[in-house]
């Protein structure tokens, strides 16, 4: 084949591909996301890992219908008195219907004026009222990142209720959280201004940008302190990997001394949000995927954090330890999750993590953890991975009968699974007529 013929073949291939390209349409969700990414580039000093694309695309899949909905809503909202419309995870929202974010993913409540409530994994909330310039949203549990789009000259009427607290919003961006178990309220305000009322806030507290507030009905008073850093504002998009942050600033506690000491009845169980900022710093690092730095930051108080952080954060604590090469500490954290939230989705995820932890050295023990995670969450997000790992562990152990049984089970439960071909190969080897 001469270079000329090669060029002709190449031209032929290119021509066929160009026909395919001509039919491809631009991805408007990606276009919008790139616009937002460009905007945030300066604020975020870090880089997004290209390999985070899979997780990012999972969010984009949700965003596509959301954006379509947003455009439709925006175009359809010509009447300034018409109430806003909203979508939940890209589908038309229903007033008063609860929305729960899955264990490892955020869930977006998108309003037709561009405002977004991004529920953190496992958070639960609902929209209870909508008006032309705002809505009332209830966060029953967990955290939500709220990004209210201000409209020039028009007062916004956004209200967030969480537990016994109410947050009046005036064009802003903040993260609000409520733990019904410990009755802990927290708010981190990145932009704008809000007013909080409810237990302990009396006539109301004006909170300004770059402040964070913590309170509980179980004790008097509240804590207001400077936000650790604007760069630490969580993103509505999952898993942004950013570069390292500066050292944590020193804490400024503005609450009265009486509010600092929790009552003895809560000191054992409730997470103390009065921990020094340095102790909470690990969480921000871990959320950015900087596990070694996160582990280094939390190492001196690791066991205390296992006891006091919320279950979702303890899971992350385990991941940080695992990635930093401290399997024993990781095990401690995962076991703490299982002890503190038995039978819950995090407990099943912790079982899976425990199985993965000892996979190389103890496939037998790992198998039991994988089995347990499957029993606890047979349709959970890690169920398929647990089935895969169970089969792999059986192959490593070398028990022919067990491997065969697992292969049969695998094909029953996941005939299209990633290890389906391997399962068939196992059965074929043991029974050539299979």
């Amino acid at each position, binding site marked *: *084949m001469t270079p000329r013929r*090669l060029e002709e*073949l190449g031209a032929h*291939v290119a021509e066929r591909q160009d026909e395919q390209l001509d039919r491809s349409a631009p991805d408007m969700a990606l276009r919008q996301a790139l616009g937002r990414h460009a905007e945030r580039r300066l604020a975020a000093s870090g880089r*997004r890992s290209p390999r985070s694309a899979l997780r990012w695309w999972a969010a984009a899949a949700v965003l596509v219908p959301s954006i379509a909905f947003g455009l439709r809503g925006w175009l359809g909202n010509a009447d300034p008195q018409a109430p806003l419309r909203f979508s939940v995870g890209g589908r038309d929202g229903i007033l008063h219907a609860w929305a729960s974010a899955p264990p490892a993913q955020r869930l977006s409540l998108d309003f037709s004026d561009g405002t977004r409530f991004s529920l953190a994994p496992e958070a639960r909330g609902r929209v209870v009222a909508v008006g032309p310039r705002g809505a009332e949203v209830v966060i029953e549990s967990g955290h939500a990142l709220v990004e209210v789009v201000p409209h020039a000259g028009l007062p916004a009427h956004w209200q967030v209720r969480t537990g016994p607290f109410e947050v009046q919003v005036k064009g802003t961006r903040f993260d609000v959280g409520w733990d019904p178990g410990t009755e802990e309220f927290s708010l981190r305000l990145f932009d704008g201004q809000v007013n909080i009322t409810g237990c302990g806030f009396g006539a109301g507290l004006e909170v300004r940008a770059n402040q964070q507030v913590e309170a509980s009905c179980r004790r008097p008073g509240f804590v207001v302190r400077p936000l650790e850093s604007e760069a630490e504002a969580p993103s509505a998009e999952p898993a942004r990997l950013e570069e390292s942050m500066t050292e944590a600033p020193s804490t400024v506690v503005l609450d009265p001394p009486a509010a600092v000491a929790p009552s003895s009845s809560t000191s054992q169980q409730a997470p103390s949000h009065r921990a020094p900022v340095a102790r909470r710093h690990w969480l921000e690092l871990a959320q950015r995927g900087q596990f070694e730095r996160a582990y280094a930051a939390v190492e001196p108080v690791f066991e205390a954090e296992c006891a006091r952080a919320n279950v979702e954060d303890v899971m992350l604590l385990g991941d940080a330890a695992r990635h930093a090469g401290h399997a024993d500490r990781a095990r401690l954290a995962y076991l703490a999750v299982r002890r503190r939230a038995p039978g819950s989705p995090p407990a099943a995820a912790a079982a899976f993590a425990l199985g993965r932890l000892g996979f190389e050295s103890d496939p037998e023990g790992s198998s039991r953890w994988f089995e347990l995670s499957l029993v606890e969450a047979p349709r959970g997000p890690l169920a398929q991975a647990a089935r895969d790992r169970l089969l792999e562990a059986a*192959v490593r152990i070398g028990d022919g009968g067990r491997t065969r049984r697992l292969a049969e089970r695998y094909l029953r439960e996941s005939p299209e699974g990633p290890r389906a071909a391997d399962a068939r*190969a196992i059965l074929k080897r043991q029974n050539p007529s299979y």
Partner: protein
Amino acid sequence: MVEKGRRSPVLELVRHAAVVPLPLLESDPAIVGALRAGDSAGGMALYDRYRPYVHRVLLRLLGPDAELTDLIQDVFMAAIDSIDRLENPAALRAWLAGIGVHMARAEIRRKVRSRRFPLFPTSELPPVEAPAPQPEVDAAVRATYAVLVKLAPDERIPFALRFIEGMDLLEVAEACRISLATAKRRLARAHKRFVTIARTVPELSDWLVEESS
């Protein structure tokens, strides 16, 4: 009837609509400037202007590939993240091609690794079913990529850029971030290896014969 001297409400609307500032970024330096300023219009303009090109380069390098859409996104995200490292804003297109090459190479290597380290030895696996032929992809295209898969990434990429995308040698060298001499060497090696393998592929037999002029 609209009185003389007064604008019709419709015309008034049109007049206002006409002065809405749209983010028209039509040159590479303007796009780069907007990206460096953290302007969202820069990100969208980059996509508008270069989506077909980036898609095309990745398609040339990888052929039909399930990861293509992810990789397109990766290229744009990486470009936005590292826009400060682009020395010559007028060279945005070539720079994007370079990022595309980098991403494609990583993808090829990832696939090679996953083929090399399966759970079971290949001999124990049942034969892999051939993917259903796509009507829009003809036999020569499929066969070409079946051969390219067998080339090393450092041979396959310059080959695809040169013979399928139609880049000249300098462009190939720039996109691959290698010297012109290295590009020539790799192309010669790729050419030789491609022809050797193509001889065993019936769908390419017609292309091996020099047409009489």
